[in-house]
């Protein structure tokens, strides 16, 4: 057992939790304002692809990261236009964005590099800087964002309005809050944060973009958000826990065996976040209730 639960596992958990924290915080902004965000996965992919291309072309991780944020904001604007301006179904639109981002990066990469498999490898010195135990600067940023988001949500007028709009947009409107504008802002922030998580994947944890490289992390982030009952500080713990399960699934391979001598199937560890989400949603471990106005377009009377 000692070989498994080491400091290496802890740092590995932190690394794997990083993209989840960004994306889950992104989801937090959008969903607390009343807009479902299933498009997190697509927003992450947009960020990951943009970061990989810009970092490779300009040899600057900083520029790459910044353009990823811009790409995320852009996807956020598209998503917001569809679901707020045109009142398109949020679940359908979210999935369309995910589908688009599964195809578009490949499409562009095929056109730019004549290779749809992946973007070119970025030399190690141009990736996001790392500190001891390979903890990236992005991980530090992700952890710093937790208290910042907590402050924004609970100590600023913007946060108060955001929560109000997600619970009762009519009342917020009557109190003089511009519901539409606030939701646009929230969804765009959501895109930026999710894209930051994606950028970490391609220019922090890895050194290129591959097809669908988020591998469902947008949905795990959504799961973390539900487990955290749509609150910023618990989001950190939910993401760390999911990062830990992922790290564990890498770590135990070939080390811990079942009494029968077989490996523990990784699949059983991989499904923990999903099973847990179902249990929490059913109300077996405290009730997790979404914001009241989640998914309902707001039409001014």
């Amino acid at each position, binding site marked *: 057992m000692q070989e498994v639960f080491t400091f290496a596992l802890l740092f590995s958990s932190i690394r794997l939790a990083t993209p989840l924290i960004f994306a889950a915080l992104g989801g937090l902004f959008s969903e607390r304002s009343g807009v479902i965000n*299933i498009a997190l996965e697509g927003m992450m992919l947009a960020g990951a692809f943009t970061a990989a291309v810009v970092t490779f072309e300009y040899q600057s991780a900083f520029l790459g990261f910044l353009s990823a944020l811009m790409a995320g904001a852009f996807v956020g604007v598209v998503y917001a236009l*569809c679901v707020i301006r045109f*009142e398109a*179904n949020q*679940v359908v639109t979210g999935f369309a964005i995910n589908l688009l981002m599964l195809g578009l990066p*490949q499409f562009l990469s095929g056109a730019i590099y004549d290779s749809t498999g992946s973007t070119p490898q970025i030399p190690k010195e141009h990736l996001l800087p790392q500190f001891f135990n390979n903890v990236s600067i992005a991980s530090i940023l992700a952890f710093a964002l937790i208290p910042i988001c907590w402050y924004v949500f609970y100590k600023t007028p913007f946060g108060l309005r955001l929560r109000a709009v997600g619970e009762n947009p009519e009342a917020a409107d009557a109190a003089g809050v511009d519901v539409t504008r606030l939701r646009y802002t929230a969804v765009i922030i959501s895109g930026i944060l999710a894209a930051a998580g994606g950028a970490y994947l391609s220019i922090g944890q890895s050194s290129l973009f591959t097809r669908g490289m988020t591998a469902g992390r947008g949905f795990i982030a959504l799961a973390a958000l539900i487990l955290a009952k749509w609150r910023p500080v618990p989001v950190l713990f939910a993401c760390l826990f999911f990062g830990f399960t992922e790290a564990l699934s890498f770590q135990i391979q070939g080390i811990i065996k079942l009494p029968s001598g077989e490996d523990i199937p990784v*699949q059983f560890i991989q*499904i923990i976040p999903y099973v847990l989400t179902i249990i929490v949603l059913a*109300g077996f471990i405290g009730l997790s209730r*979404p914001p009241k106005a989640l998914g309902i377009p707001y039409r001014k009377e």
Partner: protein
Amino acid sequence: MLKLGEKVLREIYLILIAVLASFLVGGIVVFLVGEDPFNVYWILLSNALGSTKDICYTLFYATPLIFTGLSVALAFRCGLFNIGAEGQLYVAAFATAWVGITFGGVFVEVAGRKENWSWLDLPSFLLIPLCILTAMVAGGFWGAIAGFLRARFGASEVINTIMLNFIGIALAGYVTQYHYRIPGDPILQTAPISQKAHIPQLNEYFSFIPKDVPLNFSFLIAILMCALVYIFLWRTKWGYELRCVGENPSAAEYGGISPKKQIVIAMTISGALAGMVAIGEVLGDRHRYFHDFSGEVGFLGIAVALLGRNHPLGVLLASIFFAILIRGEIFVDAFTRYISKDIGLVLQAIVILFVACMEKYSKR
């Protein structure tokens, strides 16, 4: 109030606009990449519809989409979002392959000697119906879980079906990897199912269908299901009750219909429809469970239902439309310098975005 005919015309009109608009946007993207959009679309359409062989291939690709489209549409008629077709069809495909091996008298060669992997050796006329039933039951069960959780605990079926997708795919991968893969096979797939479980290819019956087209009996089942879903929804009491819950749950309850019961029923049928993808895939085409076989058809079912206005006839037409893109993209990839087959995925996504944004205008 618009008359029914006018309403239908208006919907068709809006969908055509959405499709044209997305081809326009796609064309601009193609132009920016440095290719001639007209040429690209010509390659796409002529290779998807240009000959009997092409059309048969397109119908082959349309088959799973018809099932998943009907699945999503039926759930939607009850006011539910089944995002779980992908997981349901994976679970069903594995279960079907399992029955096709276990009850088909299958021997597998392991380390030079034949090993019996089956319990029974059923004849075709029992094995095929059993496999089809398994596909429906397994998919239906996976759908019913989300329905039950929604009915009993009020838990969002959207989130639960997403989670069940990951769980179902992981579990199917696990049993394949650890128990039903032929030892030494580098590909994550089960052993082949019994020959007796194979359903007929359509070219055995229709001489105009070229020999090498994998269009099989499941296509006819898909058409039949379109008709059955229509009859169920609009010609039976059960379908009426299901639609009542979709339109107004509290009014339905006041009228003596239990929304909870309808929700479980709808998710079960929806899952069973998604599970029927396994008929074409496992019994008709690949003859085994192959992990990662789906290529997003479960998710495209959402698009098909949306474009087909949750009506079986619409689902049929929309499936063919998406199948044209799936078939044509392969040739665009081969015959152009800069355009990869991902153009199909991009076009599909843009169509969904446009249709979703236009729904607002069709309701008026």
